[in-house]
Each structure stands twice: as C-alpha cells, then as structure tokens.
C-alpha cells in the first residue's frame, strides 16, 4: 500500500447521486417504451383449461398478447436449473409463461404489451383464464406429509435429499453421556428490495443487436441466458445493470421469465419494451426464503462439550428449483458455525410446495443453520445449568486449530476449511460489549419496572467470497483518469467507493481520479455476480491485481523515460518518482501517453509526453513483442476456496408482561471480516443486516393460508421493521486476515442478518422461561405461548424461580 486509503472510512462517493434523485434505476430508463404487464395465476395449484383474450382485443393501446403457445425454440422449454447437483434428483422449473399448469399464486400465464402500464393492466383485467383447481400443498409439514403432490410425478414432494456426514453419528450418540432431541421451526421471509425487478429491452434492427437493462445481480449471466434462449450470438447482446435499488439475493436468480419475454417482445415488435415489477408482483412471483423444520439430536458430556450432532431438516423450496439446492447446502455446511464437532451428520430434504420459489435471501440458509446450532448450545446450557457463554466457549475451535477442516463440502463444491479466525476472541469481546455478566442485574432492574428482561447470544461463521472468479480491468488515461471496471453488479453496497479505494491504494493515485464501472457487459464480459458476500473478496482482489499489473507497466515505462531502475521508483499521488530523489519524476498520466506509440497531439498531455519520449530505436518495433499499447491491465482473481468470516451477536429484550410487546433494548455485534477496506461501509452492512435479522425474528413472515393465498402481500401487512423498530447497534471489530487472498479480506455483506433469529429467540426464552421453538415470534403468539399450560418451561427458569419445570 502506498497510500492510506485502504482501511479508511472513506465517504461513499455514490451517495450524493443516489440520495439526490440522480440515480438511474430501471424504471428511469426508456421513458417512451411500451409497457409489459402479466396475467398471473390466482390459484396455488391448477390446470389451465382455457385462455380467452377476446375481450382484451378492444382495449385501445393494446399492442400484443403472448401466451405459452407463442413461445418458440428454447423459449418454449422449461427455464434452466442453474445449478444442478447429483442429490437434486427431481429438479423442476417453470416455463416463461405457464404451460398448462400453475404451481403457485403469481406464476405468469399471459404477457400483455401495450402503450403504457395502465393500458396493459386494463387488458390483463379482460383476459379470462379458466382453471381446474388442484389440491394445494402449503408449508413444509404438508409437503412432508405428502397427502398431495405439487408435481404429479414426484409423489413424495422431495426434490433433493442432501446428505453429509463426518463420521459414524449413531454410535457416537449412543456413547454420549447425555443426549437431547428437539424439533423447531423457522418461517418464510423475503428480500424486499425497495426497487423490484425490472427489464428494459431495445432491439437495434440496423446492426441486429439487443441492449437489455435489467435490475439484476448478475448481468453477464443474464446476457448468456438471453443469447441462448433467444438464439442470438453473444456478441449481439449487451446487458447492463443500472443503479439497482437493492437485491439481497432475489436478483441473482436468472433468467427470470421477464428477462427473456421482454427482449423477445422487443425484437418481435421492433419497439422498446419495459416491465417494472410492482410490489404485489414481487410478493407473489419473485422469491422467498427461510422456512425449515429442524429435527436435532445432540450428544454432549458433563462439561457441555458436543460429542455428536445429528440434524434432519425439511426445507421448503417452493414450487420449483431453478437455483438448485444452494440454500439447503449452505444450511447444512454452515450450521456447524465456530464449533469443533467430533461427529456431524446432516440430512436436508428439500421439498416442493405450491408457493413462490425459494432462492437465496441475504444469509442464504445460514440464519437457519445458525438457529439450529445456537439453539442447540442454549439447550445444552439449560440442561446442565451452565452459562450459555461457557458452553459455547468450551466448544469453540481454538485459534491454533487453523486451518480447520470440517470434512464437509461447501456450496462451491470445495471443502469447508476455515482459513483463519479467533472465535474465543469474538466471544470475549461480545461479553464485554453487551455486558453479559451484568444481565442478572439488568433483569432485576427491569422487574422493578414491571418488565421481563432476557439476553441471548449467537455466533456464526460465514463462508464468503466463493469462486470461481471475478475479473478487473484498470486503465490509466492520458488525462490522468483511472478507469476501473469489473463485471459484477452493484445494488447499493458501495462498490464504487471500495474498489476506488483499493485501486487508489494499489496504484498510488488520488481517489478522485478513479472511476468505477460495474455490471456492464460492454465493459467487462466475464463475471459471476454479486451474492454470497463475494464482491469485496472477489472483485476487490481482482481490481487490486489489475492495478498491480498497471503499476508494474507504469514503472517499466517510467524507468525507461527516467533512465533508472524500476525498483527505485514509486508512485504517489499520481506521480512516478525516484524514491528519495526529489524532482526525478514523471506524472502517471504522461506515462499513459508514452504507453501508446501513436501519439497524435490532441491535447496538452500528449504534447508534454514528447519531452520524455526517447529517440526511436530503429531496430525494434514500436510495440515490443509481448507488449500492448496503452497503460492498462486486466486480471482475474480465482480463489482456491471460500474464505470464512465470523461474528458474534447478543440481544437483550424487554417484554411487557401485560401486552406481550417485545422491545430489543440492546444489540451488540462483534464482527470479523479480515482486513477491512472501509470500516464505515462494513458497519453499514452490519446495520442493514441486523435490521433484517430483527425483522426476521420479530416481524416478518409470509402468511400463506391453506389454499396457498398470500394474506399479506403488501407493505401494509408484511411487516418490515421501520427505523423505529430497529435497535441501536453497538459494534466491535476483530481482524483476522484471510491467508487466501492478496488483500487478506473476507466478505461482509450478509453477516449482519445471520444470527438475529437465534440470538433473539434465546433472549425471548431467557426473558419468559418458556421454550421458544418457532420463529419469528409476534406479541400475539407470545401471549398464546405463555398462557398455554403445555408450553415447556426452561430448566433455567425453574432454577431462578425455585419452581420446578
């Protein structure tokens, strides 16, 4: 590092644009475009017996109506299973428009294109689709019971049976001094970006090319999907992710039906076409996550050390499996957290239901895994009468055990080997930060105020930055501007700032000179995408490597010009200079001009460069063999495996025992994502994650009725926490650098959300003395729980009150 930008809380350079209305989101593009709208299934499970569009034909402004019958070639085939897996034995995907059967409310059946969205919806209203209703399977227990099948040819509703084990669990359980078994549930929530999905497509008939803007987390892959499905050359398709108003996972899925159908219509009609998802569409036809039934058996010794862990999970994957079994695998492999488990067996049955598909939502299976593991720790502590922190501490992987091999296979197909960490350090910091040892005092104080107080904690390890690769391109212009491009997309994370910090630090230029472009296939064709807390790790390292390449070339050219050894040069504030020799220098922008032997003097920079240009050597070509004109470099970062970030959260809740209202009064986070590029951005990520964690624990659920109708498909009834519901978050950092990548960084995007449900469940249990085995929990449910005589009391409550459980 030649400057101190890396690690500094540099203010987000994108914010001024985004918060003053100068962002360019999907719906800001193509003001004159035709609008698409969809007729979607009102039934959770039905056969389509007829589609009558006649009444819509009179609507003035109608341009086109498409049904499945209008799809041809690859478009008429089922949507791709993006990530196949041998254990996904019965994958199913929908069609871009329903082909005879619908499997969830909201599945697209007809696409209407009209002069504007109002007219398109008027036409949709007049289209009559006839259905023969079929029995709906709703919820993981109904799928498991399999009285009815979502897909006729899959009678048990099981899409996949994912199984991993690290030893012989049954004898280990039999030999354990203690065992306990329990079942618990976690509910569905969803990403809820403020900007829904959206697609705009423009066909240029003059050069037969297609430009698509889409609100996506993976523009390069959407490009490939469109080219394949519409049978276009990849060269004829450009895909750009404009400013994207949040993703949180839902926009990594691709291609969404609309990402194919809108370009299809644009080509067919020779007109710009746009579709911007509305909120109801987002609720009923995008994606949800999180519902699982977890059956857990744990063996442990008198000290609370786990001797064996056996977990059987039933995971609701919704109607289809376009994203494979990534979420089940992540739950299965991240469940183990920071703990040294002698024997572990996990089976995840991924089951179909007649509900919206389930694909990664920030955390992507980790909150569920954390909930399973951390609640197991709580149960052991409760059974043995030990402090919950003590039980955790006794099971932690020690700092001298790294690299630590869990003998599991991660989502990227690579081994789960933790690269670095200090978990006892996290726990110690957390206890200090939340005041763990003063909780009993706070409990007594709350009692005097008529409140029930409880505390809980949860630890996690998060595999971040999975490969296979990301690339970066850095180019220095004669103006001194440094153009940085990477293929992955941005949804508000602050990539423009962070990547600029990295390049400015690596190259030794002022950050103001650095311009960052992401997610534009015109600029960078190879990319994987923004998900799995991978942008900083993957593209951060890629742009760093690209910057190092540029730096090496700049030093070589400058050394020639200054007639010194490149080793003696440094770059600082955009000037290449001889270390310790004032005056012997050349501006980097001049080096950029020198890098290109074609030097038309369009500007002053080119004229200045001539004074540095040495006499031409007639015996050599102007561009040496193996060299290239221009001061630029492209490089890729491809990790051997994921790097594992970690953290610990604690929550203190207060409950009003008259109204059962729940207030999170303290929320503490200790966070370790290796070397921190920008602590302010990391803290922002943590804050947002905690908000979603609190939402998932106390407010959000997808309220499906037995017929598969979503009862709360609006922001009036789906309760994302407001700022007024999110507690103040206190944060402490720990930095254990990753040995796996040049910058020593680990991902930070998802971390904040992971332990929320587990920590808050623990705190609620601590406050009420009642076993909490289903989350989220609302006041009305808590009231039911505490007045139900059959609700299990915790042993700890009995110890505290002297009343036996």
């Amino acid at each position, binding site marked *: 590092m030649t400057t101190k930008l890396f690690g500094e809380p540099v203010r987000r350079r994108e914010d001024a644009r985004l918060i003053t209305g100068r962002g360019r989101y999907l719906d800001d593009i193509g003001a004159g475009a035709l609008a698409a709208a969809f007729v979607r299934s009102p039934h959770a499970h039905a056969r389509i017996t007829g589609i009558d569009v006649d009444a819509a034909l009179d609507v003035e402004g109608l341009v086109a109506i498409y049904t499945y019958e209008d799809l041809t070639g690859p478009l008429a085939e089922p949507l791709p299973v993006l990530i196949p897996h041998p254990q996904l034995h019965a994958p199913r995907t929908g069609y871009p428009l329903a082909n005879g059967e619908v499997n969830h409310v909201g599945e697209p059946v007809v696409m209407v294109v009209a002069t504007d969205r109002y007219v398109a919806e008027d036409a949709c209203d007049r289209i009559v689709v006839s259905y023969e209703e079929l029995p709906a399977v709703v919820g993981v227990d109904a799928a498991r019971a399999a009285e009815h099948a979502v897909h006729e040819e899959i009678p048990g509703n099981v899409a996949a049976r994912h199984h991993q084990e690290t030893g012989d669990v049954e004898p280990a359980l039999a030999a354990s001094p203690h065992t306990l078994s329990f079942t618990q549930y976690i509910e569905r929530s969803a990403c809820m970006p403020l900007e829904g999905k959206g697609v705009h497509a423009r066909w240029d008939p003059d050069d037969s090319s297609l430009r698509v803007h889409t609100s996506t987390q993976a523009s390069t892959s959407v490009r490939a999907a469109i080219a394949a499905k519409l049978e276009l050359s990849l060269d004829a398709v450009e895909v750009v992710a404009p400013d994207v108003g949040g993703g949180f996972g839902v926009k990594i899925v691709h291609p969404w039906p609309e990402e194919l159908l809108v370009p299809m219509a644009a080509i067919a009609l020779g007109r710009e076409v746009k579709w911007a998802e509305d909120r109801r569409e987002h609720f009923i036809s995008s994606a949800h996550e999180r519902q699982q039934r977890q059956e857990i058996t744990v063996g442990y010794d008198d000290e609370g050390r786990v001797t064996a862990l056996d977990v059987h999970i039933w995971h609701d994957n919704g109607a289809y499996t376009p994203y494979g079994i990534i979420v089940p695998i992540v739950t299965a492999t991240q469940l183990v957290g920071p703990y040294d488990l002698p024997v572990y067996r996990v089976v995840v049955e991924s089951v179909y239901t007649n509900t919206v598909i389930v694909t990664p939502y920030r955390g992507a299976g980790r909150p569920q895994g954390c909930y399973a593991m951390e609640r197991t720790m709580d149960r052991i502590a409760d059974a043995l009468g030990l402090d919950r922190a003590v039980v955790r501490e006794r099971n932690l992987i020690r700092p001298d055990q790294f690299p630590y091999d869990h003998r599991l296979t991660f989502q990227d197909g690579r081994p789960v080997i933790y690269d670095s960490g200090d978990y006892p350090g996290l726990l110690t910091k957390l206890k200090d930060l939340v005041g763990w040892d003063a909780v009993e005092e706070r409990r007594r104080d709350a009692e005097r105020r008529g409140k029930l107080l409880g505390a809980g904690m949860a630890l996690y390890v998060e595999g971040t930055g999975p490969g296979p690769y990301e690339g970066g391109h850095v180019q220095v212009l004669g103006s001194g501007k440094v153009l940085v491009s990477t293929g992955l997309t941005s949804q508000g994370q602050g990539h423009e700032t962070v990547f600029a910090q990295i390049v400015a630090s690596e190259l030794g230029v002022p950050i103001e000179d650095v311009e960052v472009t992401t997610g534009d296939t015109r600029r960078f064709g190879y990319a994987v995408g923004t998900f799995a807390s991978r942008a900083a790790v993957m593209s951060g390292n890629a742009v760093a490597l690209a910057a190092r390449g540029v730096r090496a070339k700049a030093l070589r050219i400058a050394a020639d010009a200054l007639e010194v050894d490149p080793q003696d040069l440094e770059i600082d504030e955009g000037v290449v200079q001889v270390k310790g020799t004032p005056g012997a220098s050349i501006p980097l922008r001049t080096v950029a001009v020198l890098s290109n032997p074609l030097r038309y003097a369009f500007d002053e920079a080119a004229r200045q460069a001539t004074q540095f240009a040495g006499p031409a050597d007639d015996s050599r070509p102007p561009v040496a063999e193996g060299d290239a004109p221009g001061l630029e470099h492209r490089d890729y970062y491809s990790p051997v495996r994921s790097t594992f970030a970690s953290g610990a959260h604690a929550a203190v809740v207060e409950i009003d025992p008259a109204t059962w209202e729940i207030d999170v009064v303290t929320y503490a986070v200790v966070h370790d994502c290796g070397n921190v590029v920008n602590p302010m951005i990391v803290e922002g990520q943590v804050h947002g994650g905690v908000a979603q964690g609190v939402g998932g624990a106390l*407010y959000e659920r997808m309220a499906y009725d037995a017929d598969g109708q979503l009862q709360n498909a609006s922001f009036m009834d789906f309760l994302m926490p407001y700022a007024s*519901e999110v507690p103040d978050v206190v944060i402490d950092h720990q930095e254990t650098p990753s040995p796996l990548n040049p910058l020593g960084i680990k991902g930070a995007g998802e971390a904040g959300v992971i332990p929320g449900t587990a920590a808050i469940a623990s705190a609620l249990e601590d406050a009420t003395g009642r076993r909490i085995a289903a989350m989220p929990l609302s006041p*009305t449910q808590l009231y039911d729980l505490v007045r139900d005589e059959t609700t299990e009391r915790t042993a700890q409550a009995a110890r505290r009150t002297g009343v036996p459980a």
Partner: protein
Amino acid sequence: MKPAPFRYADPRSLDEALAVLSAEEGAKVLAGGQSLLPLLSMRLAAPAVLVDINRVPGLDAVEATGDGVRVGALVRHDALLRDAAAARVQPLLARATANVAHPAIRNRGTTVGSIAHADPSGEMTSVLALTDGSVTVATPEGTGTVGWRDLFVGPLETSVTGPAVVTSAFFPALPERSGTAFAEVARRKGDYAVCGAGVVVTLDADRRVSAARAAYVSVGLVPEVHDLTDAVAGAPAEEADWAAAGALARSLVEPDGDIHASADYRRLLVGVLTERTLASAAAEALGKVA
C-alpha cells in the same frame, strides 16, 4: 398496481361538486386520498369519476368554540394535531391524531375523510363516537346532520349514500371535571393499531368517578362506545379499581382475529389499555377538580 380508467373532476364549489356527483353513478369524493388511492391502485375500487374537493373553498377550517370543535372536510390530520384551540376544547383530537400513521400520511390525509371512509381501524371514527359527535352532510336537497350512531353502518360503510359530501365533523367539547387518554398497541410505530383505546373519565365535585366511557380502535365492525361506569362509579378517583373497568370492557367487546392479532389477544389488549388509559384520564381529571 395501476388504477382502472377514471375521469377526474375538480369542482370549485360545493354545488358544482354535488352536481358532478349527481350526474355520475359511482362517483367518488377525493380529499386526502390516503385510503382511496391505494384502493384504486390495487383495483379494489374503480369509480367512474373522482370528484376532487380540494379546490372547494370553505372546507379547510378548524373552528373551536365552547360547544366543541368543528373540523372541515379538507383539514389534514396534521393541522388538527397542531391546533392548540381544538386541543383545549377536546383534547382527544390531538391525542388521537398523534396516533394516525406517519407524518407523510398525516400531512395529506384528512380527518373527515377518514371518518367518511369508516375504517374500524381508523382512530378518528372512534373519537367521533366517544365524543358523541356528528357529521354535516351536503346533498343536492340540502344540508343535514348525522349523528355517529346513525353514520356507521359497517366496515367501510356509512349511511351517507348517493350524491353527498361530508363537509365537516363536529366533536363536542370535553365535559367539565373530565380527563381523557388515548393509547394504542401497534405492530410497528405508526401502523394501524392492533388495538387502540380512547377514554373519557368524569368526576363529581367530590373527586369521585361519575362516568367512565371508552371506545376502541380495530375492535368490532363499527365504532362502539362502552360505558364502564358501573365498575368504578362513586369510587374516589385515586383509588378506583381500573382493572375492574378493564375486565368489564373485556366482557363487552367482540374483537375479530386477523394475521396480526388473535381475537383473544385483542381482548387482552382491550383490558390492559382500558385500565391504563382510565387511570391516566382520571389523573388528568383530578387536576381539574379543585
């Protein structure tokens, strides 16, 4: 989420508004639009004409007199919340409007519109009932007054039908030696209440409870006023058994359950909020008795 086609009228007088309403079956009055526009966008309502009364003069006044507070049809919740004279005459107005949603909604939404919308989870319908208020209704035949009992017919349904504009609501003044309180439990700050309670406690000259009445939000299909005096009648205000009044209230209400709260939980909250608000209202009333 785009409304079905509708025509739009923006009359400049009440007569003109009534003329448009008379001419068009299914015309709908637009004031603040905070309930109506979402219904249009979700195509749950599709009126042929929207009659925007925002340019009709004379409907935007809050008039506080010794008898009570008259609130014009274009008075925004926020204006009522900040009207000190109205709060002196009938403190429930400010106390309840403070619980209406968030500032952005209070800035546009109208108190009279919310009453005319007759949503049982609205605050101001309950306050109209609790204060024994009424509305003034203009029709092509003339202007009349409708008391709250005759106004609310069912959820989102009033007795005002045909071409008509509710031009104002009248909230009678708080009786002497009385105190009020208003409290809600909501899932999130500013949400529709899971349960809300407004109460009035009146004392006699000897600081004993002479009347205790309550009305609830999100409980029942139409606003109801429950007289809880029997549980506390004649008790010294400092020692009245407000819990007994809460228990009485629980036995009188018939709440429904929904995805946010079971009927039982709402009944629990009726008891708790009744007890808490009555105690607070009584304390306020005590301060007014020499």
